[in-house]
């Protein structure tokens, strides 16, 4: 190969095959290991814990509470999103088109009052990301969150709930969410955290 007798002028060739094999093997590995993060509605910095329980991937309704106390929802099961939205709409006497339903199913998560959700669904994706964040109302006067939770549980049997909040979210915002849940007999839920390594203190 590199030793070509007689032809001294020839440039030596390096056998790159093993290296290329290796590189592509690693590319394939990382390609498969990567779960692409969908653009999140809220920037959340999770708190740390030593818990060993992994986050469930299916049948999970994530309630995100950001630093300003705005509430967002996201349901893991695509097939349940349609019936969920339909039931919620009929509860609020809202007419929804099939285009709106399709758009809702594609939505990774949402965080706005139901009234604002309808026009939002017909926007293009870049426009959706530009929208001002409103959060799902969860006040005692207008608690849409409670209805979302109850309807989600009725369309998706075995649904689990997870609260995902920022490290610095004041407790009073979480209190509203937890009160809403317990009032609807959702007593068992998960708090999403990042795994803490052993060498870090509490």
């Amino acid at each position: 190969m590199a030793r070509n007798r007689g032809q001294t002028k020839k440039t030596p060739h390096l056998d790159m095959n093993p290296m290329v094999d290796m590189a592509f093997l690693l590319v394939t590995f990382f390609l498969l290991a990567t779960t692409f993060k969908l653009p999140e509605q809220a920037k959340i910095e999770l708190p740390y814990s030593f818990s060993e329980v992994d986050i469930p991937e299916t049948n999970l309704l994530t309630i995100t509470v950001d630093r300003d106390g705005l509430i967002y929802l996201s349901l893991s099961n695509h097939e349940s999103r349609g019936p969920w939205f339909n039931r919620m709409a009929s509860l609020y006497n809202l007419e929804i088109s099939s285009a709106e339903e399709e758009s809702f199913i594609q939505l990774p998560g949402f965080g706005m009052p139901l009234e604002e959700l309808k026009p939002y669904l017909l926007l293009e994706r870049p426009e959706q990301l530009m929208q001002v964040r409103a959060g799902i109302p969860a006040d005692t006067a207008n608690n849409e969150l409670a209805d979302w939770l109850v309807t989600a549980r009725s369309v998706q049997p075995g649904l689990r709930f997870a609260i995902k909040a920022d490290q610095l979210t004041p407790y009073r915002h979480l209190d509203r969410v937890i009160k809403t849940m317990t009032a609807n007999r959702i007593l068992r839920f998960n708090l999403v955290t990042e795994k803490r390594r052993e060498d870090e203190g509490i």
Partner: protein
Amino acid sequence: MKEFDQFEEFSNPIREGRKQRKTSRQNVFTDMNAMVDLAFLLLTFFMLTTTMTKPNVIELVMPVPEDHERPEDVQAVRESRALTIIPFPDDELYIFRGLAVETVQRISYQPDEFRAELRDFISSTEEPMVIIKPHPESNYRNLVDIIDEMNISGVKRYAIDDLRAGDKAILAEAGIELLGLKDEVDE
């Protein structure tokens, strides 16, 4: 390439005649530099974007909320068995046992202090019960830290509850500034 040629010769001994022509042929090398560049570029990209750590969860079971129509369901905790933990804003932490004002103390989240206090409480109490009553302005990280500590220390019974008038009175009596809690009307 050389190995490949040898293999071909070995497997086709009949084609011995072609050998002569073959030596004159130059071995073809593909320039793989571009491919390697691309492969490593992709490799770097995926290595940097991949987050290996998957989030995990703390499982929490809340007590049934108080029902005013069925007061017999309300679980009373004997004060002698209760430890109240109150996370305050700015990462402050107050604890007291039962309803005793003299046991109110400020501790830090450091494991050597907090965990030791918790262990002391568990070992000295029969059926220990910890009640976490976060200040409305305390942050979520404080709550998660405390719950995590419960799991580490093996406290089986703990609950999250509201900071009530009684607790505020105890804190006030111990000379702790309530930071905006005083004026609130408790239901």
